[in-house]
């Protein structure tokens, strides 16, 4: 049995179809030009029918003329008002059609590759433009390694960052801070910056930072932060004092409700005992309220939502700060702008990290990164604008007679 690709939407349709089942546009008749669109490797022949070992194409209870059993029942059950919803007789497989398919098959073999349809050309142009864009982007970003770097002033402090800084600045010194590292390794480049800046701030205020994670890879990420902090000359961490890695929250997201209520019950007991042997102040910790602040770093809006929702159930009487990737910001703004606030502080994206660094003048990142970032955004904006206009033109040209 053969199929034909709709030139409008590029979807597969039955060869006998005259109208596309997806976009309802007219399909070209099966001339040799469209033969290359036949997506199927085998025509429907008796010897090609799968053996009973495999899934039967026509199980015994099924009348071949009805197509596959239950297939049409789909349409009967369907409530939607779509014009093409019901399945008309074009599913029927007659001998004539089988022969037709056979004929088409032979024709393709004879013809070899025929020119592709618009959707394929679209695909090709896409392959090309992907390569084109990668070259532009990479070359454009690397240019500052070869030309002298123009001075670009650091991003000005945003109100959200300032507010977060004030919250941390006014913390009680005697209580430890809880930092949740819930981001995947991919986003460490973006989020490490803010976390290190926060860590520096907490260390300067002589506050013990306790790290946990609901991601299985989290504990490794935490260790990486410690190592980087040690290497970096700017972050004040004399031989890892004032930081403790409590490890993975058993159950991941499932463990969050329990962690919010009874952190001692869910975390393995030796994680606590070992911690208390180094930092006696951990002995007083029985619930998140016993931390001076809770910082949650994640790139995933769903993870962030899970934390917010579970914390809302058992509100911690402490400030709640989110360090999030730029991609998750819009999903969290409703909680941040809620009245009363469900989030107290928000550090989003690389800008926040760069801005926060300036408070303790611990700028660890070179100015080149910020410049490359700006250029990258600019390039993308321009490319999308130009490409969008061109595409709109093409579309208009194609649709207008």
């Amino acid at each position, binding site marked *: 049995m053969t199929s034909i690709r709709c030139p*409008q*939407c590029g979807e597969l349709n039955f060869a006998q179809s005259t109208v596309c089942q997806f976009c309802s546009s007219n399909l070209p008749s099966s001339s040799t030009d469209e033969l290359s669109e036949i997506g199927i490797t085998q025509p429907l022949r008796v010897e090609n029918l799968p053996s009973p070992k495999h899934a039967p194409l026509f199980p015994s209870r099924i009348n071949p003329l009805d197509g596959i059993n239950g297939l049409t029942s789909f349409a009967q059950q369907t409530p939607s008002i779509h014009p093409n919803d019901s399945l008309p007789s074009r599913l029927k497989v007659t001998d004539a059609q089988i022969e037709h398919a056979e004929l088409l098959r032979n024709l393709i073999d004879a013809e070899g590759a025929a020119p592709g349809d618009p959707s394929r050309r*679209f695909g090709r*142009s*896409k392959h090309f*433009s*992907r390569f084109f*864009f990668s070259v532009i*982007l990479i070359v454009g970003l690397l240019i500052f390694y070869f030309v002298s770097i123009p001075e*670009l002033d650091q991003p000005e402090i945003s109100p959200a960052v300032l507010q977060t800084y004030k919250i941390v600045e006014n913390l009680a010194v005697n209580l430890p801070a809880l930092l949740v590292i819930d981001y*995947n*390794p*991919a*986003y*460490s*480049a973006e989020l490490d910056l803010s976390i290190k800046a926060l860590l520096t701030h907490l260390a300067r205020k002589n506050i013990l930072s306790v790290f946990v994670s609901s991601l*299985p*890879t989290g*504990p*490794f*990420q935490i*260790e*990486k932060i410690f*190592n980087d902090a040690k290497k970096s000359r700017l972050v004040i961490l004399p031989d890892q004092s004032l930081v403790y890695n409590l490890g993975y929250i*058993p*159950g*991941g997201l*499932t*463990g969050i*409700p*329990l962690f919010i*209520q*009874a952190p001692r*019950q*869910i975390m393995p007991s030796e994680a606590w005992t070992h911690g208390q042997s180094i930092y006696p102040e951990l002995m007083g910790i029985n619930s998140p309220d016993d931390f001076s602040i809770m910082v949650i770093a994640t790139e995933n809006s769903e993870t962030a*939502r899970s934390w917010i929702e579970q914390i809302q*159930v058992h509100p911690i009487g402490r400030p709640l700060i989110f360090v999030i990737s730029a991609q998750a*910001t*819009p*999903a969290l*703004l*409703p909680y941040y*702008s809620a009245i009363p606030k469900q989030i107290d502080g928000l550090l989003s994206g690389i800008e926040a990290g760069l801005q926060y660094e300036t408070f303790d003048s611990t700028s660890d990142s070179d100015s080149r990164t910020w410049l490359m970032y*700006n*250029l*990258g*955004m*600019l390039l*993308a*904006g321009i*490319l*999308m*604008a130009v*490409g*969008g206009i061109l*595409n*709109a033109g*093409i*579309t208009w040209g*194609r649709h207008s007679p």
Partner: protein
Amino acid sequence: MGHHWNHSDGYPIEHNRWIVKRGLEETILVLIAGVSGCIVLSGYFFDIRLLNSVRLTLLNYAAILVGVVMIIGGVNIIRVHRNKILAGSPSSAHSLVLLTSFFATIAIVAFFGITSNYSAWIYENVLIPVERSLLALLAVVLLTLGVHIRHNNLNLFRMVFILTVILSLLSATEIPGIEKLRLDQVYQWLAGVLSIGGARGIILGVALGTLAAGLRLLMGIDRPYSD
């Protein structure tokens, strides 16, 4: 259950017994899911000491069982790729690489301990570079998707979408010249006002859907667990 259907060979009596048995099993399963769920759910509304302690115990069990589930997942991954190798599928070489790296990592972690430098080394030199590079690929992929946005289905919503994307991208840059366009003020309205409304609407909708799906399961209307 899973293995019944091999044995249920259409004899009427046998079949009826099987149906009755299944019905009983279903009821028990629904009860298990419903009761455990309701106990956990009640903790969100009441603060009764006894109920709370039971709830915490159940949550603790669930957290431990997630660990067991992960082990099962690991075994499944191994199985799938072992099958690929045995079947001599075209990707069997890759499956071999996967299994090798899997067992090598397990061996290193088991021998040196999970807190050793070597475990950290694996994370820093395998996971970090691969994931960051994959994310870097997304920059190009997203750019291509954005430019080639389905132009034969360019409707009102998509136009608004792509326009917002372009404005957001341009307003983020502080390159001299661009900032004079004062796009950042447009962005303030887009991201700080309009998008909050849309996001809150979507979030409320998802919450409603979650409510429906979850309650249907607790009420035994949906039974994804019963096979």
